[in-house]
């Protein structure tokens, strides 16, 4: 669950007085960010009212007890990631905060419509750039951005994918701006992860607050594995008889538990590259009873490593000849190869244009304003405003090659400006954003912490978005870094039915 956007709080806004209540909220501080629960004047938003009354009647020890039960439950289900060193194998859980993040039916309706629109446009885009390239001929996107992208796979040109659905599973990160609107921060179209936490969180939080859950009419999400299975089945003519496998890089991958979890929930085989072989363009798994043909592969291995014949030849994680079988149509791979070009940071800025171009519609969900430094006017704006912008290198991830303007020293900004001027095509810039805050348990009380929202979109024959999401929370006060490896946790997300 990589989230390299370390967006920073805008300096200068005073920490307004908390909602002014006694009891659990005494340390709850409202800032410039939109708060999910409290309006600016300290009143509780309508959809949080029932949670509020529950909290004020719950004793802190009880909360603590439920939190511990939650952690134990995660351990028991194996929803952990294992940190390996030579001597130890310690299982860690990503902390879950028990307080659900609540989204109204109306808000969700808009999110859902916006995500459907987005994935439709992105699939059109992928189909286009891997065939005629109309979008390039019409000058909507510069050629060099596509051809120069590391993730553009020329091998995919002319290859047919079932239902034209290149992206079958997408995790889109949304944040809520200061004005209360949800905006898209980034799409994850390659091997998005986190859905197992979405499901696990629901499980524990529903048991922690069963009455509240029932009373509020929260929409169910446990059908996700069934929906995923249905989406995968729809990609092949074999449908219910299709032989499906989840392809994992192996036990040392940090998301391994999710691969195993999903395979188990769907009732399909979990395989590694070394379990598979390709003979005469057909993919088989090596089982004790003989070779078993595989029709659909839900792959959690990146393009680069999936086939040493077609791509990186040092890879021992992949299956030689897999791409040729894919090209021949004898196996379906979900997500298709080459989708990474569409979740490139630079392409992100063009997505609104793509929505207009392919769908003749206005984007329902806004994107964060993005300056492409390859454009001279944008570059000068960025250079003039470095102290207020977050600048990211297009090709990098994990927080490398990034400048957080408000946080950096003058010297750092000047050094970065030189890098920008030397290679402007490689950088984009965005204004800093205050992620919204949500009530979170801290030391026996409830405090405001920044959160984001990652719903999961399934797209096979049709688009299905399970009414829920992984809400990630920055557990450190004031921090906007929701990344699990840097002090982040997660929450259950309650989408209300009315």
């Amino acid at each position, binding site marked *: 669950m990589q989230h390299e956007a370390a967006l920073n709080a805008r300096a200068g806004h005073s920490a307004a007085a908390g909602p002014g209540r006694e009891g659990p909220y005494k340390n709850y501080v409202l800032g410039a960010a939109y708060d999910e629960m409290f309006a600016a004047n300290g009143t509780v938003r309508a959809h949080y009212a029932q949670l509020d009354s529950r909290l004020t009647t719950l004793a802190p020890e009880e909360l603590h007890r439920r939190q511990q039960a939650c952690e134990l439950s995660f351990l028991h289900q194996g929803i952990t990631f294992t940190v390996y060193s030579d001597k130890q194998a310690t299982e860690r859980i990503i902390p879950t905060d028990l307080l659900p993040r609540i989204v109204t039916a109306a808000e969700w309706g808009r999110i859902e419509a916006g995500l459907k629109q987005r994935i439709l446009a992105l699939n059109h885009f992928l189909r286009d750039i891997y065939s005629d390239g109309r979008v390039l001929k019409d000058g909507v996107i510069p050629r060099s951005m596509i051809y120069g992208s590391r993730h553009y796979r020329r091998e995919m*040109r002319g290859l047919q994918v079932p239902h034209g659905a290149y992206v079958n599973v997408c995790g889109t990160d949304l944040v809520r701006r200061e004005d209360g609107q949800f905006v898209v921060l980034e799409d994850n179209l390659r091997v998005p992860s986190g859905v197992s936490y979405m499901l696990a969180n629901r499980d524990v939080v529903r048991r922690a607050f069963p009455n509240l859950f029932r009373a509020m009419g929260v929409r169910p999400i446990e059908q996700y594995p069934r929906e995923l299975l249905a989406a995968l089945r729809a990609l092949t003519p074999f449908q219910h008889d299709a032989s499906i496998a989840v392809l994992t890089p192996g036990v040392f991958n940090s998301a391994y538990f999710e691969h195993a979890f999903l395979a188990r929930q769907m009732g399909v085989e979990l395989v590694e590259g070394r379990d598979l072989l390709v003979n005469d363009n057909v993919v088989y798994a090596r089982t004790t009873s003989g070779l078993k043909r595989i029709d659909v592969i839900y792959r959690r291995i990146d393009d680069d490593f999936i086939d040493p014949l077609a791509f990186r030849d040092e890879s021992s994680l992949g299956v030689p000849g897999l791409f*040729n079988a894919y090209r021949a149509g004898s196996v379906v791979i979900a997500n298709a190869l080459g989708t990474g070009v569409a979740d490139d940071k630079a392409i992100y800025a063009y997505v609104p244009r793509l929505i207009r171009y392919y769908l003749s519609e206005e984007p329902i969900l806004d994107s964060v304003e993005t300056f492409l430094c390859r454009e001279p006017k944008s570059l000068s704006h960025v250079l003039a405003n470095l102290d207020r912008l977050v600048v990211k290198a297009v090709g990098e991830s994990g927080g490398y090659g990034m400048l957080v303007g408000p946080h950096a020293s003058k010297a750092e900004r000047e050094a970065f400006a030189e890098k920008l001027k030397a290679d402007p095509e490689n950088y984009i810039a965005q204004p800093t954003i205050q992620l919204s805050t949500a009530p979170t348990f801290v030391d026996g009380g409830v405090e405001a912490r920044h959160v984001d929202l990652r719903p999961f979109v399934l797209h096979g024959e049709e688009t299905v978005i399970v009414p829920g999401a992984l809400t990630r929370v920055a557990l450190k006060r004031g921090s906007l870094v929701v990344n699990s490896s840097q002090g982040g946790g997660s929450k259950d997300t309650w989408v209300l039915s009315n």
Partner: protein
Amino acid sequence: MFFSIRHVTRFRYSATVRESVMELRMQPRSEGPQALRSFQLNTNPRAQLYAYTDHFGNAVYHFNVLRAHEELRIEAQSVIEISHRVPLPDAVDELEWERYNSYNLTDDHFDLLEPSRFAFGSPALDRFMIEKGLENPQGDPLTALKGLNRTIHDAFGYEVGITQVHSPINHALEERRGVCQDFAHVMIAIARRWGIPARYVSGYLHHGPQNQDRSQADATHAWVEVYLPSLGWVGFDPTNDVPAGERHIRAAIGRDYADVPPTRGTFKGIAESELAIAVAVEPTQAPIRHEDFLRVACPMSSPPPTPSMPERLYHQQQQQQ
């Protein structure tokens, strides 16, 4: 005129291997003055062959062999017909440089102007260009390219064994010696610097008795094609300081060697592989030569298949008894 080409590739393994998977780019292209009249491919052990056309329009064959084997032999036999080529003019006008604009350059040219895996800029290339006065092309593009062809030919010695199949361009630049693969990469890198789309051609060269070619007769060959808006794609052979002509038989084109290796594959097992190649290009009246000329070559045009993971796991487990 007609040429017949026989290209034999033999992999020998130091131990039994299994599950070989191999891709081949050996079928001569059929376009322009070159037409493919027949093509046959045989493998030993026998395998079902599959084919597709890659994004450069190259015909790619592939197959796999599951069972245990110690040798893999691939024989490609083709007959092509070469029509008379219009000879290159001595020069084009200076305005040709202006014609490298977005109107004339299309999507396909984009990749051929960018650095690629083997043909890329570096301090060693910069030094070479400065030394040979190549930072700026002299005259019109065609003249400059002819000069570049000659300069590279004169600056580098032809020697097998100095560079390897995966050698980066710097290796040859430092040694000033190499083989056709290296010369082609250098020329491509410089042409692209000049803003001229350039691509790598893998194929065969007929060495006639009167030709003064440096390159090996019994091996595949590599040269360069560059794009001139007035003339289209023009071929140059920097190894032999000639333009690509009626003796040059094109098999595959790409950005550089990485896109067009004649063979590329994997196998399972713990073994070393030894590669032997034989190539015979003859006008069809001549009889086909026998295999006794097969010799073990440094793998300069075909990398040995890469051993993939596998067997290792099982062996170790059993030995733990």
